[in-house]
């Protein structure tokens, strides 16, 4: 069984009189331990699809199933638990809390989950992304690439089964972007975690096992 399954999902925004279709009849699946790249121009619906896959939003039609659980049928609490336990997010603009140190940022989801071993796990994840010596730095004291590594460590904090990365290299130079892409590849190879990467870089496509192309809200 696929880890992530999107069946005939559609997403419509706006009002009834002037609807805007962001996604139409999209179906895809991601197997456990698979690296899938989602490509397409800006505004083609990549981020919308990623939000559906991450249980952050519901489809207007069709359904999304994560590890066998159909998101439309879950309560808000169950959705939150699903996100907390099975999904990790990586954003283009890192989304680190500027008031917290790197280590505290990684620790955050563990604390929210009331994990007693939060500190130890956070340090371990920092080590895994090769940022062990940067735990006490604040985000503004780090480069873009370093901030994204911290964000990846945070995404991995709760041992998720799926990492959703929305243009994670969009704000980085090519060399740094390649490092981040290699790091994402390692997640799949070493941790057997699935990665769904939204990108429009060629390098991004190269590290993926499979590429899905999205155009005007539909899979090509």
């Amino acid at each position, binding site marked *: 069984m696929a880890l992530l399954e999107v069946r005939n999902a559609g997403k419509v925004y706006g009002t009834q009189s002037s609807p805007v279709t962001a996604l139409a009849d999209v179906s895809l699946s991601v197997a456990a331990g698979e690296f899938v790249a989602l490509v397409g121009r800006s505004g083609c619906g990549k981020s919308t699809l990623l939000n559906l896959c991450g249980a952050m*939003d519901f489809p207007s039609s069709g359904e999304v199933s994560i590890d066998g659980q159909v998101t439309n049928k879950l309560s808000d609490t169950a959705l939150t638990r699903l*996100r907390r336990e099975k999904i990790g*997010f990586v954003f283009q603009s890192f*989304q680190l809390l500027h*008031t917290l140190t790197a280590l505290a940022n990684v*620790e955050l989801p*563990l*604390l929210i989950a009331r*994990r007693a071993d939060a500190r130890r796990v956070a340090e371990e994840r920092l080590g895994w992304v090769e940022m062990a010596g940067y735990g006490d730095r604040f985000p503004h004291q780090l480069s873009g690439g370093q901030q994204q590594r911290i964000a990846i460590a945070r995404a991995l904090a709760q041992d998720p089964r799926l990492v959703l990365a929305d243009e994670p290299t969009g704000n980085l130079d090519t060399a740094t972007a390649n490092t981040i892409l290699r790091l994402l590849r390692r997640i799949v190879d070493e941790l057997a975690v699935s990665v769904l990467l939204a990108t429009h870089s060629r390098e991004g496509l190269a590290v993926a096992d499979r590429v899905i192309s999205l155009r005007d809200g539909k899979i090509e």
Partner: protein
Amino acid sequence: MKSRWLLFERLILLPLLREPVRTSLTVFAVALGVGVVVAIDLAGQAATGSFHSSLESLAGRGGLTITATGGVDEWLLGKLARLPYPLEFSPRIEDFASLDGKGEALPFIGLDWVGSGRMRWQAGGAFANPILVVRSLHLEPGQHVRLLINDALREYTVAGILDSEENVIVADIGMAQRVTGKVGKLDSIEVRLPADASTDWWRETLERDLPVSIRIAPEGSRSVANRKMLTAFRSNLQVLSYIALIVGAFLIYNSISVSVVRRRNEIGVLRALGATRAFIGGGFLTEALVVAMIGSAFGLAIGRLMAVGAVRLIGTTVNALYVSSQPGGIELTFTTAAVGVALGLSVSVLAALAPAAEAARVAPVEAMARGREEFVAAQRSSRTRWWAVLLLATSAVLSQLPPVKRQPLFAYCAVLLLIAGTALAIPSVVSQFVRFSAPAIEKLLGAEALLALGSLRAGLGRTSILTAALSTAVAMTVSVGIMVGSFRETVAVWMDNQLQADFYLRPAGPAGADRHPTMSADVANRIERLPGVRAVDRLRAYAISYEGLPATLAGGDTRSIRFLPRENRASIFAQLETGDTCVVSEPFANKHNVGPGSKILLPLAGVNRPFRVVGVYYDYSTERGFVLLSRRMLLKYLPDPAVSSIAVYLNSGADATAVHEGIARIIGGRGILLSPNARLRRGALEVFDRTFRITYALEAVAIAVAVMGIAGALLAMVIDRRRELALIRFLGGAQSQVRRIILFEAGLLGLLANGIGLMLGILLSLILIFVINKQSFGWTIQFHWPVAMLLAALTGVYVATVLAGLFPARTAVRMNPIEVIHEA
């Protein structure tokens, strides 16, 4: 537990600590709000609540007190002693004295020295006119002092120091009767009951043996009556003190809203990381709770400090309008502290509920999208408009309802709804203001003002809350200002009618609503015979109890009083001279629900005598209420000719200086105060102004709270918009332009708040004057515009608001645009 603490530390505590100035301002706003409530409560307790009637000084506890209008005849003591009951009777004289005729009026109590075994004092020798004094007067045994009692200034000798915490002077009853002019009379008889006796049973038993005009009541009942009389005064003051807390609530609401808006992105991240809605909402409530807890703790300390000043101000009012009282000590009890903290916490949490719920409701995807929050505020402005209309209409209906047990509860609700309705209408008002004023503002004040206006429109939610907070404070100032100004003008007009004599005389020493010292009747008779004197009015007053509430019974020539509209003056005066008739003052009529045609029972000359009310007259001298008889009628039942005050009218063309000198000769050597008309009026208005100082103090605090809120909010705005402000610099804007933008925003906020506050204040003043005042105190106040005071207050608030923008403006100017842009 540890993870909870770490989350608390990182998501709540650290963000608060990172903005120390803004956090401190919010904390201080809550502290002042709580402080005012605590101060008024403590001062109220000290000045009115804990203190008992001065006349009950040194009285025992748990027994009965026998009193009668005009005093109890001494022979009654003999009659009581012959009754076959195991009771002890102690006669008392209860009056007031002032040292050298200056300073405060101290209770002067005459007791049977031999019988008062429970008093302990240092033994003295044999002295002329011996008195006992308390230690706090700093007098030594053997020292000679002069005391003014009624109109007589005599020398007394301190025979000993009394071991009592009450500020009191004690004399032997015989001497006390003599110096107070009450020979053959007693002010009260204290009855000590057997240990296991029922007070009610003994009262009923004694009532059967004594004339019906004798009043028998449990000891302390005069204090209870005083407290009852002061209930309305205290509750009005307390309600006034809550205004500062309401202003504080707006600021907490604003502070948490700012926090929610600013951390919207963070909310999205946290939700993506698995935080539940409850976690997010709970977080913001906890933030409010932290601010409230620290603020309330400081509030207790501030309240304790402010209480010292407040007790003096409240004490002045209580003495001037109600009853002689010496403030008790200020004690910060557990209950007062708990109530203060509970109010601070609950108001803060309630204020934070809406923004916290809003934060919890936001979907994570939307949380990361910019600009949505103001869309929500704009959408709300049309929805809240209808709520505003509903609340304002309900307020209008509630303001027309009658009081509940003499408490204007519906009117208080009307005030709250009026404030809430106005707050809800503010987003619409601000939108319209921005829409219509933009072209004019750009033309008059330039681009910076237009940018400031744009910022106010962009942050409609926040602008509305700040405007609501400041306009509530302004409205309070305006409404209380109009009420006090109107009251003052009404009193001034009343005095023009009431005080038409050329000279007034009363016993020297401090005046008080329940003290009626007397002058010899001979003084008035001799003045009447002076050349140039046309007439002399004599007034005699007694403190009485009517239906369990303190009141004043007076008899006199009443040519200058003014009756309520539609009452026939000539007919009333004619009726007053014939039979048992009386007129009553407006507060008395409203308090006891009587009017022309009503019958009231006055305990006089051995029986409860029915008097027919023939008129109601305006009186603003005391809230206790007057029952006024003709002097002839009063002397018929209480034949003591001594007078409490004298009014002297001159013939036209008479030499006022010569008459003044003549009167001075007559009263020479006596403790009598002679005041020309103008001085008396001036003095009365001074007392009036002192009485209302406490309300001005409360207003000042509310304004201070609001202005601090403005400063905090502008600071938050500067921090939020640092990218935009930095961009202005990148685009060639000068530092001075950035400063001007912030100051314009402060100025526009002040302008909006002043405008809305003025309108709201006028509406509130109508409720205060025509509903709350009427239902609480029973006074008719004519509406009057205190233009100068309003102009001064509004200008003051405006200047304070602009000044509040200085620190945020400085912060904006000092930001390094390069760092800001890089950081963002």
